[in-house]
């Protein structure tokens, strides 16, 4: 089921449905299974270290506990920064439509990493905006991402900004053994 958002462009509001595109929908996917000696498909489960309990899907729940091991509900948790100051989420959805800014240079998009791709039905877009997109213009909706078109259609790209610095000869390269970043690249292979 698709989600709908309102985009505002030059006073006109387009209500568009967002259909997420991922690798599975474009290229297919793979799933690993284990078979027992009789060729029957098995279930992945967790075994406690004492060997006492086997827990299948849905047999456990992740919870936050306080010092006294009482459960704290997620909605009651306080978010604080490293200095102990409360953190207020800046990803609050605006009440009204998302105002499109632009056209923006393509470098603005190239300086970001795409976190999600949505296809947009061009028939739902205001005709002036659709014409501008088809000419190659790119628009930016703060908190939403970039709207652009290619020969396949119109896409909304959710992004996050990635900033790199120029490197000089004397730049000290700090080697950190923490390799967890590569975990993010470890999706299931095709």
């Amino acid at each position, binding site marked *: 089921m698709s989600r709908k958002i309102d985009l505002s462009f030059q006073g006109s509001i387009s209500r568009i449905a967002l259909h997420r595109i991922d690798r599975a929908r474009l290229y297919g996917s793979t799933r690993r*299974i284990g078979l027992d000696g009789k060729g029957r498909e098995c279930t992945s489960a967790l075994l406690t270290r004492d060997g006492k*309990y086997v827990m299948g899907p849905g047999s456990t729940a992740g919870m936050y506990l306080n010092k006294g091991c009482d459960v704290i509900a997620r909605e009651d948790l306080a978010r604080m920064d490293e200095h102990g100051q409360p953190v207020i989420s800046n990803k609050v959805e605006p009440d009204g439509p998302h105002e499109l800014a632009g056209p923006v240079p393509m470098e603005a998009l190239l300086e970001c990493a795409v976190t999600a791709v949505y296809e947009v039905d061009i028939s739902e877009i205001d005709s002036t905006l659709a014409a501008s997109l088809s000419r190659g213009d790119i628009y930016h909706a703060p908190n939403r991402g970039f709207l652009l078109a290619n020969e396949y259609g119109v896409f909304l790209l959710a992004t996050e900004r990635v900033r790199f610095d120029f490197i000089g000869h004397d730049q000290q390269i700090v080697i950190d053994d923490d390799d967890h970043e590569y975990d993010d690249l470890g999706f299931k292979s095709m």
Partner: protein
Amino acid sequence: MIRKVRLEDARGRDGLVYLSSTPHAAGPVLHTPDGGPVHFERIIKNPMDRSESTLRRQYKNDDSLTHALIEGDPEIDMEAAGMIAGPCDRVWVDPDGEPLYSATMMEIVYGPDGGEKKRRALRDIEANVGEKMPLRWTGRFFQREEIVRRFAITRKLQILHTDGLAFDFLHRMSGLLESKDALVSIGAGPKWRDPLIFERNGTPHRAFLEGRTKGDEYMLILHLSNLELKKAAS
């Protein structure tokens, strides 16, 4: 994260360089409403021997199961429910609920429509990025316009020098790419055309190298994409 890799330039000369991602800002720390510390734990709800499927196997029919549920609490393990699971091992469990000592691994391949296409024996796909596996220029250049409209750049890594010679090597490379005002496609593998796989069985990524210079400084960014901007078939 930082990792050493071997990179070749347009002339096929290689050098050892660092691949680095941008440091992530530390996320917010969670506390109790009064500012006390919290810790995350996996809590046992119900072990598999109390699951519905196990109970259905234990009782001959629905009536006997219903009767047992009314009379007692066979679905609840009073000792385990609510216990902190602690560190666990992942195991395979057969349809009878018994853990296996070993399982035969298979891979199911699904098409874009979600339908099963085939089953095959599991095969590992090795990483092709490392100190002994050079990344090479494919010789194919892309304008920024084309990159932005054709690919979803899902990740970016910066290439950094490991020593003074590598600095000159990378600065020249950046200057060349800047003069071409284009990004070059980077390939891996024996034929230089393979997408980059950073770890065993990882997602293959197409890579595009962008270079810029500012006086004696350089910036080399490897743009990685695992998704084209296309409409899904269904």
